């Protein structure tokens, strides 16, 4: 059987070296350096700057302005119909008028997702140094297809969800959940090495940072 054969070859190949313990020196940065961000506000500012570097739109809003800003972003795009995870906080869409929001509980058809004008979600965490939002399928995020098929993704990030570095994010996230790390809109370098809006994922990403 090939399982045994492969494992036997591995053991034979390693010989005496097999099982040698290798110590992993973890003296790289686990948090942002003081130079990168001295205060909490700096972390949030760094996150916004890095998200913008990915050619995504970033806006800062107060908690009380969130519903208005969401509505304004959708109006600006003349969105008629959007999809949202069915556990999206009701308040986020409170100001929506003239836009139909489909609540998805895992049943909306792919063809419908392809036809809607966008999707609004929250996130599980965000990384300042890389300008990344991470979705884990938890509250206000929905299944993966929601943020993949529609061409426009509006992602709401609460300032306290933003961590500084990748190690902080890895420590905070649960690998048993379906994770999607999103750094800007889908982008391809394949056609001339210029980052252009990518072939399959949403070609536009808008991030609203909510400062509490």
């Amino acid at each position, binding site marked *: 059987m090939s399982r045994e054969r492969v494992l036997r070859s591995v053991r034979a190949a390693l010989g005496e070296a097999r099982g040698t313990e290798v110590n*992993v020196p973890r003296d790289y940065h686990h948090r942002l350096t003081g130079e990168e961000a001295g205060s909490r506000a700096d972390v949030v500012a760094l996150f916004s700057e890095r998200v913008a570097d990915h050619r995504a739109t970033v806006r800062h809003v107060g908690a009380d302005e969130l519903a208005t800003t969401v509505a304004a972003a959708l109006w600006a795009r003349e969105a008629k119909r959007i999809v949202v995870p069915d556990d999206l906080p009701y308040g986020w869409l409170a100001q929506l008028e003239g836009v139909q929001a489909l609540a998805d509980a895992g049943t909306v058809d*792919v063809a419908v997702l392809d036809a809607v004008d966008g999707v609004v979600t929250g996130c599980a965490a965000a990384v300042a140094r890389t300008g990344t939002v991470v979705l884990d399928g938890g509250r206000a995020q929905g299944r993966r297809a929601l943020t993949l098929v529609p061409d426009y993704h509006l992602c709401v990030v609460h300032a306290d969800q933003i961590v500084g570095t990748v190690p902080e994010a*890895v420590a905070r996230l649960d690998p048993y959940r379906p994770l999607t*790390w999103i*750094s800007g809109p889908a*982008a391809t*370098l*394949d056609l001339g090495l210029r980052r252009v809006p990518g072939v399959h994922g949403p070609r536009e990403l808008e991030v609203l940072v909510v400062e509490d």
Partner: protein
Amino acid sequence: MTSGPIPLPMPRVLGALGGTGPGEAARPRFATAAREALADTGQRRSLRESMAVLRGRREAATAEAADWEELREAGRAVRDRSLLSLDTHLETLEGAVTDAGGTVHWAADAAEARRIVVGLVRATGRSEVIEVRSPVTREIGLDRALAGAGVDVAETGAADLAVRLAGERPAHFLLPAVHRDPAEIRRTFLRRMPGAPSDLTDDPRELADAARAHLRRRLLSADVAVIGAAFAVAETGTLVMPEGDGGGRMCLTLPETLICVLGIEQVVPCWRDMEILLQLLPRSATGERMSPYVSTWTGVSAQDGPRDLHVVLLDNGRTAALADEVGRAALRCIGCAACLSVCPVYERTGGHAYAAGGSVLSGPIGAIWTPQTRGVRGAAEASLPFASTLCGACGDVCPVKIDIPGILVHLRGKVVQARRHRPVPPPEMAVMRALAWAMGDRRRYEPALRQGVRWARLLSRGGRIRRLPGLLGKWTEARDLPAPPRDPFRVRWRER
């Protein structure tokens, strides 16, 4: 611009990769295969420009990370830790994937991996699959095997699409169309892609849109997908896939069945190791702080993604590389391709010269990977360690500190050793043996030297020898040899 008409799609294109099928002709040596690439001036210009861009992006991205060297050292250690207990980690991975609802398959070689994947696709009863091409799926020659089984394969990548439509091989294992500029891709799309808009320009944005329109319906309705992944985390059974365009997300989100083909070396011990590798890989590969998308999945989730997950673990010569204490470091590779963009040989030849010899990985990593996984008996494999100037740039940029130049030299030694016992010695060895015999004794050496000097001076013009006779002529193809002085050092020493 380009050197001629785009060749018609030919079946040889995929079949020529990897040791993948019966009835294959002998593979050419690197130097022979490189001639064709070197004659294509359009391709050389595209490659030169692309590699300069990639180098610049990588340099900026790594310079920005103040802890880059610490990350590299940690990355090296993580990969060594994976390899030195590979058997344990593979068993742990198998258990974790199985516990999370997936199925693990083991393939000792490419043929077995093809059989497994074709069988899994057949079992679904579907005749269409979507695929994110990866070095591993190319290595096993999967597309040809699926086509042979009557399965229709659609790629998700725009560059993969362009390369296939043009009837070419990928020139780079991360950026398959890097040797073609947008104008050439536009022409390929217009000629070969059904439904391409007739007013398509060479703006990459429009090309991406055209590919999106062409691929979308197929991807949205697919039931079976085949992909690779960057890493498999043993501890949790998590598969990790960074990408740019979302094709991988399409594969792991919508279809019911997901088949993931991995090399056994791609396992890493624990989830926490991702904090290192997810920093090293994007910055080294495309000069990005993070890839646009990184997806991770652990087995199957009730409400999200595939209902059936199959992981195929492939050996195909990797354990042969693992057996070499020096060469095994090649298996640390995380597939960033940074060594390609700094390599003066790759920049001039592109990937085709490597692929013609059966190497899926090109550039410096291909030159150390392929001879180890396939052995150095074949002329093509044996020529790869010599496809280098040993300038050392590849080793300097490698994010997991593979000493590529050192391994190249080590493999050159192996090639020579492998030829030592042939009944008819190769010319180089015959010359070396003759020299050893002549130089071993003063009574032989001094007359030989006098003869040699006389002949050399007869061949020289203006103090230089421009062409040596016979086989030695290869040496003077690209350089002159200074004529030796009339009186050798030994004579002058005696007469001092």
